């Protein structure tokens, strides 16, 4: 009896192992054949996207990967690159602990010449070194934590202003209107970063600030809402992400907090508007991002995106589109200069001076946009929709 069970177990694990090898073979094989086959344009290079394509924050990843896909499809259709481009999607769930596995998946494919992503700051922090060690260039469309550029990631580039640019900009606006502000953050790399920057600038402008942190896994925002209300603050700033922001919005309305609600770019999304419903009306959002539906420079992009994905572009779609085009231009430039490898592409990305739909993009020595370039815009939710109020430094 015992032997038979053992045999069964052995047989089953053998089958399992075979299935696993079959899987890894097929993925590997797929990568190789397409890189060799190439189609009309000769060689094929791959642009990787790393971000959340599943889980709580998948919407942001989908916004971005669609932008990447559109840029690649347009470039392939135009046929003026001299090579074909393919997209590799690596899902990190927006989770720093899953990011290294996603990065390993990207690095395995030798045709990958650059990464758009990771979408989130925590994930970016986790893999910046791994990509750097492989000379693989990062063009980041959305991770806005203000310390990422200081961590010595050799291939780091970012097309959006960081939280140390965005936070103070929105804080200056708040300081014009409010004398007492309650700053809440979700204890994540992004949330604590932007909340800290806002707090510092508000204090510098003489505003009374009170702070609190609420873990992002909480579902009950009753206590924190009560605390915000009792503090007598005229406004509340939330540094965190959309799904949690929606719960917070509902709880604030439930306790009847009378003040203004302001949040950073992480909250500005359709996840927030649908989740919060009427409780989200009147919220303000700062974002170093472009509203593709109103910006004149993004008109063609918006039309093409809407036609392709049956939905208008959302937060960070234009930024991902620009990041991808920067990468494609760099591969092209590297090809013109002789060799295309990860290092030469990274060198070309660093030299970028690119007129994108979100603005003129240049990278400083640390890979970020130089101070003073990059606009922070203010948005608000009105009747369940997010509308742009324009440049936050000029907003009333």
């Amino acid at each position, binding site marked *: 009896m015992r032997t038979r069970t053992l045999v069964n177990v052995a047989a089953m694990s053998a089958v399992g192992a075979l299935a696993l090898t079959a899987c890894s073979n097929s993925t590997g094989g797929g990568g190789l054949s397409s890189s060799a086959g190439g189609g009309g344009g000769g060689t094929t290079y791959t642009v990787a996207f790393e971000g959340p394509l599943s889980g709580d*924050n998948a919407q942001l990843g989908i916004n971005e990967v669609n932008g990447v896909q559109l840029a690649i499809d347009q470039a392939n259709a135009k046929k003026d690159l001299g090579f074909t481009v393919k997209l590799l999607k690596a899902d990190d769930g927006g989770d720093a602990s899953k990011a290294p596995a996603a990065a390993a998946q990207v690095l395995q494919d030798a045709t990958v010449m650059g990464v758009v992503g990771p979408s989130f700051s925590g994930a970016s922090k986790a893999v910046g070194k791994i990509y750097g060690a492989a000379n693989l260039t990062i063009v980041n469309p959305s991770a806005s934590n203000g310390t990422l550029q200081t961590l010595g990631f050799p291939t780091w580039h970012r097309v959006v202003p960081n939280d140390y640019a965005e936070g103070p900009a929105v804080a200056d606006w708040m300081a014009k209107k409010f004398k007492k502000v309650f700053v809440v953050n979700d204890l994540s790399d992004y949330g604590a970063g932007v909340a800290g920057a806002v707090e510092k600038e508000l204090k510098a402008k003489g505003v009374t600030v009170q702070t*609190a*942190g609420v873990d992002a896994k909480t579902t009950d925002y009753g*206590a924190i809402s*009560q605390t915000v209300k009792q*503090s007598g603050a005229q406004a509340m700033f939330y540094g965190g992400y959309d799904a949690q922001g929606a*719960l917070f919005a509902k709880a604030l309305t439930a*306790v009847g907090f009378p003040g203004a609600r302001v949040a950073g770019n992480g909250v500005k999304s359709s996840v927030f508007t649908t*989740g919060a*419903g009427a409780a989200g009306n009147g919220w303000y959002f700062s974002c170093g991002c472009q509203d593709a539906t109103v910006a004149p420079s993004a008109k063609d992009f918006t039309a093409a995106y809407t036609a392709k994905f049956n939905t208008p572009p959302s937060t960070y779609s234009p930024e991902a589109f620009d990041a991808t085009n920067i990468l494609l231009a760099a591969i092209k430039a590297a090809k013109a200069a002789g060799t295309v490898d990860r290092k030469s592409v990274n060198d070309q990305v660093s030299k970028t001076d690119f007129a994108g739909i979100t603005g003129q993009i240049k990278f400083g020595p640390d890979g970020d946009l130089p101070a003073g370039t990059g606009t922070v815009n203010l948005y608000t939710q009105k009747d369940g929709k997010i509308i742009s109020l324009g440049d936050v430094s000029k907003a009333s």
Partner: protein
Amino acid sequence: MTDFLNYLVLGLTRGSMYALIALGYTLVYGVLQLINFAHSEVFMSGAFGSYLIVGMFVHDGQHLAWWQVTLVMFLGLLSGALVGAAVAWGLERVAYRPLRRRGAPKLAFLISAIGMSFFLSQLAGKLFNRLSQNQFPSYFDQNKAVFTIPGSGATVSRIQLIVIVSAVIMMVFLDRLVSGTKLGRSIRGVAEDAPTAALMGIDIDKTISRTFIIGGALGGAAGFLFGTTFVFSNIMGFIPGVKAFAAAVLGGIGNIRGAMIGGLLLGVVENLVPTFPWNGSGGWIGLQWTDVVAFVVLVLVLVFRPTGILGERLGRAA
């Protein structure tokens, strides 16, 4: 004072839900000396089950007459309880009974429970598109204050009243059931000494199965209340599950009244301690330490009373 009472009401609301879930852990532990780690998914399925039923009766943004709201609430609670009971019953059949028949070691039950927990959570994710925030349609103004506590500005909202009152009713009902009926006697009998109970003519399998059903019904009803108050998703079970387990241990695992007290206490402590001294300053400790506070209290209680506040046995104390 106003602040204190507001936090207290928030704590009692959350604590009632913990208590209902904790009862599921404690009942099963009582009869099987086993932690049913899949109980958090029973709670989750109660939320989804009642969502399907409530969704059939009301549509988005529709405000109903008071008697309709009461009816829908009752149906939601009932369907949550039914689905929870069904899932718990199935769980026992699939994941525990076969192991028990073959006399598997305790560790195997634990792994089986964890496996079922993953399975149920992913199944719900698959069926309901893995949305992180499912919401019940809003069919009445939940947050409208029902009354103001005399002598202060603190208010109790409709949903808070509904959660606390229905939880208390269910707990009183359970307490009567266990201490005063034939089924309750057999549950206590199996908990105290299963082989002897079998010799006295109690069908152990049936009793265990029914214990799972009762615990599942309470957990499922808690799922409905939780989903109505906050939001629900396929991964919603984990944190309330861990907290409720802690509450069960706090009150004395296996002890029914202990689970009730432990749940309420944990909810109240979580809200009151971090916000002390309740004067609008945000508290000395601060809300970011909520979970730390909860588990420090648990550890402190266990240091001085290792068997929990009311002690361990289902057979005796209830």
